[in-house]
């Protein structure tokens, strides 16, 4: 995992440097001079030497790595002129909150709808749910978000349009972000549940006259959960990716919007920090999923 993170850093670093347009010049345009105005040579040189941008890339990279490992300092933002770690500490909670709540919605709503749909297989409500979720996974996320604002904020006046801080501000972005994952989790749960419900021992339990909810909660659920857990791990990636768009629309002060802004301003240390944080979160969730998986499925063991 450490090696992966290292490679991710290297990849991002060199990617951001193949770009057309000098870093120093763009940084200046985004901070001091104004987007369209020309930048004087002295100003460029001043910035370049302040951040050692004239050194060969690999030297810059290894300096960065060294600093990161020795002092834990992963750089200072060119634009905000603050330590990247500070900015991450500021923005991460918002993203974790948004992605976390969306994940909880995805799991709870997805699993319960999946079970419901499986129990009602081929009835009207099953078909409706399936069609709805098919749309859910197929609509572009930002379109959904804008439609939600139109309906819930402007028509029904149930939620503020944008902002951050209170519970009602969380409602729409979390709904918009989780929609895709709810649909994905629901589809997997339904299939997996159907399969489990068809098994011998469930039919046996049913024949014994156990009430349905008991069968589902005691027996079927646990066995049906394995693929669901897998898909949840994969959904974390789409949640973190989707967060970029959702944060932009809802003026949510998270790490995704920070990343987008920093890319266009060539704020390299911040881009680096954001990518690192996102990848770490992603890998961490995968790690958790794998732990859970091995725990639930005795057939799989490490080694």
């Amino acid at each position, binding site marked *: 995992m450490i090696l*992966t993170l290292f490679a991710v850093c290297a990849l991002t670093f060199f*990617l951001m440097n193949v770009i057309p347009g000098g870093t120093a010049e763009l940084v200046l345009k985004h901070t001091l001079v104004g987007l369209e105005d020309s930048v004087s040579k002295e100003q460029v040189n001043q910035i370049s030497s302040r951040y050692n941008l004239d050194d060969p890339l690999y030297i810059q990279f290894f300096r960065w790595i060294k600093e990161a490992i020795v002092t834990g300092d992963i750089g200072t933002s060119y634009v905000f002129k603050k330590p990247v770690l500070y900015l991450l500490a500021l923005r991460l909670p918002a993203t974790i909150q948004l992605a976390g709540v969306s994940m909880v919605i995805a799991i709870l709503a997805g699993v319960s709808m999946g079970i419901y749909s499986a129990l009602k297989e081929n009835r009207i409500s099953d078909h409706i749910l399936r069609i709805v979720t098919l749309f859910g996974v197929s609509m572009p*996320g930002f379109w959904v978000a804008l439609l939600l604002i139109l309906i819930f904020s402007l028509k029904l006046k149930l939620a503020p349009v944008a902002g951050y801080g209170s519970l009602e501000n969380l409602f729409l972005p979390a709904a918009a972000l989780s929609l895709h994952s709810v649909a994905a989790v629901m589809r997997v749960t339904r299939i997996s549940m159907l399969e489990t419900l068809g098994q011998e021992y469930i039919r046996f339990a049913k024949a014994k006259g156990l009430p349905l909810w008991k069968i589902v909660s005691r027996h079927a659920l646990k066995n049906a959960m394995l693929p669901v857990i*897998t*898909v949840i791990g*994969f959904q974390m990636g789409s949640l973190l990716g989707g967060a970029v768009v959702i944060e932009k629309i809802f003026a949510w002060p998270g790490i995704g919007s920070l990343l987008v802004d920093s890319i266009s301003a060539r704020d390299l240390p911040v881009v680096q920090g954001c990518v690192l944080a996102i*990848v770490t979160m992603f890998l961490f969730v995968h*790690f958790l999923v794998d732990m859970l998986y091995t725990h639930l499925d005795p057939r799989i063991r490490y080694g």
Partner: protein
Amino acid sequence: MDNVFANRLRKKSFSLPEAYGSQFAKRVFQRKDMLFALAALLIFAGLALFAPFISPYDPNAIDLKNKNLGPSEEHILGTDYLGRDLLSRILIGARTSLSIASGVVLVSLFLGTAAGCAAGYYGGLVDESISRVIDIFLSFPGVIFALTIMGALGTGIFNLMLALSIVHWAKYARMMRGQVLSIKKQEFVLSAITGGAGDFYIIRKHIVPNAIATLLVLATIDFGHVILSIATLSFLGIGLPADVPEWGAMLSAGKEFMRTAPYQTIFPGLAITFIVIIFSILGDGMRDILDPNHEGGEID
């Protein structure tokens, strides 16, 4: 962790039924949803192919006096913010969207197959290093990775295809590797190896044909994802510029007019939604047919 990945993948491999082609076609015909999706796809593809001949207007012809119109007799779907005919743009846009997506899927499929074959077949150090690279590429959430690459490359059709291919190939490689690992152990491959057949021959004759079905399922479902990614990147301002007639670009350019002239987002939005639905029905269906016992979902 890698082992768990591999384990999960190994379970997914499914060998092809005998009498592959006819059997498959027969199954497809038994499924109404797939037939329906296939028909819809053919219609879309046909429209895209003949777009220049059937579109009523030049998709780039600007007519400022007639901007932001709703559907009418002259403009069946209305006009956009520069007075360009929406129907014509959606038709031409089908071309752009579908060809970008096909390009990305084909390139990823090819790269992924090659890398996955090499890793799975040769094993050892080759496998070790390729798997490492695959892991690295998969440790980025897709959109974030594409975003970073596009940030570096700048907007444009070619850059977009390049960025999305870089993001997508690893999925195919990982799946291909898993496939190769399980196929390699099978009787007919082992006998071919002892029979002294060359590596390339075995890969071409035995491995790829047996693994490709699974990859095609992935490719089908992935097609929709690519189209959604294009839209997302265009929305963030780093996919395609608004003047390119492409559904995602149209949708994000039209978002400013959602209140005053909603048609310019509704129609491209629906077009995207439908094409993604079509591909996900086809992909699911293919998977059901090829692997009736699958646990589902993982490919998503």
